[in-house]
């Protein structure tokens, strides 16, 4: 609304009415769009819920089938892992998601002494993003309190709500890089119940390095 120079009162009144009307219409339109967006998010969430369930049940079913036939079922290699830096330039006990490929595995091997990492499950991913999720919005760390924040930054990749974000990370999607980049590093607290020994590898009953599935326990304790 721009400031209007002094006009005769009648004009002012007319102008005000039209402006009010326009604003009213705009509001209605905005609400409509919002409603649409929300229904869309709802449907997406429903879809993801089903998808996760399916993924899970498939695993179990296939494993059972294999056992029945006397075979072994080798689950697919994990595609995403979670890093927790023990001693880091950024901050201790901060975490990020990392896509698993040869390059990143080699990187991790170099940094093994300072990181704990593993393969998060859906619950961990959920916990992290809902509880400690902050987004990098215009270079600032902003709490993910609303889906619009995500939509504004990641809308062009098709990620418009929290559920989308979680889905993208859990099932390694095409835009994992962007989604991960959007997420600020998770600032976790000291693990409740303590750490075993920071300096040696998990395999040696320490805490460093790859601990595969056990990362989920650690994440729950640190959340």
């Amino acid at each position: 609304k721009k400031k209007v120079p002094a006009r005769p009162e009648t004009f002012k009144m007319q102008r005000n009415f039209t402006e009010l009307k326009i604003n009213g219409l705009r509001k209605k339109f905005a609400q409509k769009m919002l409603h649409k967006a929300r229904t869309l998010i709802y449907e997406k969430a429903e879809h993801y819920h089903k998808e996760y369930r399916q993924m899970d049940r498939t695993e179990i079913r296939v494993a059972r089938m294999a056992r029945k036939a006397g075979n072994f079922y080798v689950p697919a290699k994990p595609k995403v892992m979670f890093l927790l830096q023990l001693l880091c330039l950024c901050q201790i006990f901060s975490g990020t998601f990392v896509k698993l490929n040869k390059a990143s595995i080699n990187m991790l091997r170099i940094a093994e002494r300072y990181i704990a990492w593993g393969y998060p499950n859906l619950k961990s991913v959920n916990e992290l993003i809902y509880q400690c999720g902050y987004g990098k919005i215009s270079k600032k760390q902003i709490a993910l309190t609303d889906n619009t924040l995500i939509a504004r930054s990641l809308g062009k990749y098709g990620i418009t709500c929290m559920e989308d974000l979680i889905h993208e990370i859990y099932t390694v999607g095409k835009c994992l890089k962007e989604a991960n980049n959007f997420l600020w590093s998770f600032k976790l607290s000291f693990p409740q119940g303590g750490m075993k020994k920071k300096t040696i590898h998990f395999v040696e009953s320490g805490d460093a390095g790859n601990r595969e599935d056990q990362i989920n326990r650690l994440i729950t304790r640190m959340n």
Partner: protein
Amino acid sequence: MACACPLILMYYRKGESSGKNVTLPAVFKYPIGPDIVNFVHTNLRKKNRQPYAVSEIAGHQTSAEAWGIGRAVARIPRVQSGGTHRSGQGAFGNMCHGGQMFAPTKTWCCWHRRVNTTQKRYAVCCALAASALPALVMSKCHRIEEVPELPLVVEDKVEGCKQTKEAKHPWNYFAQCKQIEHLKLAAPGGHVGRFCIWTKSAFRKLDELYGTWRKAASLKSNYNLPMHKMNNTDLSRILKSPEIQRALRAPRKKIHCRDLKKNPLKNLRIMLKLNLYTKIMRWNTILCQARNHKLQVDKAAAAAAALEAKSDEKGVAGKKPVIGKKGKKAAVSVKKQKKPLVGKKPAATKKPAPEKTPAEKKPTTEEKKPAA
């Protein structure tokens, strides 16, 4: 900027206006820079200085020599000879009694300062401009309440008066217009705002002396009045003008505060804001839980009834405690099935553990169907 009227009335010596007008020379609209006036004044005042210095030989009229080391005294030069208090006293140092001062002043110090001609002219014009503003003149403590107009211009005839008292105006220096170039007159002490009385011809000559913004000064070589930094200094009026207002965007009055982050896993409302579907999920789990609990209860009741029937037949009384055990066993077996389903309910509410087991039983049978 001085808001002076372009036409000034002229007055007779007795304070009556002669009815004739003179246009205001451009000098009186000069931008007033008291800092420049002060600077020029302090530097020009130095031209009247006479050199001063201490005597060259002051403090050196002794033949003092240091005693050197080994005599448990400071190494300052000490006065030779003996027989007087003065002997052995320190000499030559600024810290010594009767010694020369630190850095004795010299006559060849730089006494005079030069100021750029333009700066000098700038200062004079500032001072003249200031003399046209009653506020500034009054702040210089001139009593001008009775004065009809500033700048005060009087008819040429008044030149004839020998005493200013005749003209009934307080009046200190009477100088020809050209001499106004002395800053002393217009801004004595480096402060602007001296009360000046002009004769008509002197007033008229100001335009030639200093020029206007349209033409250069004719009586000076190569001098123009400097430009104002701001032509229109009424800032509030400028800001409210339609030209500027039209170009502005709407003011942002809304203060954006940081949103308080609440944990969606614990706070249902916030969770729903982010993910509507959780409501359905949780409602479903509650329903399932209730249903399963009911089933469990029914089952237990049925089992109890069956056992009772059996025990009635056999006539054993102590079978009842076994029911509890059996019930627990059933729960345990169901619990084992539960574990892989933990991941399925990401936004699961925290339910007490024993209650969970019957709840999970039903979904396993339900959800196996879509997977198969």
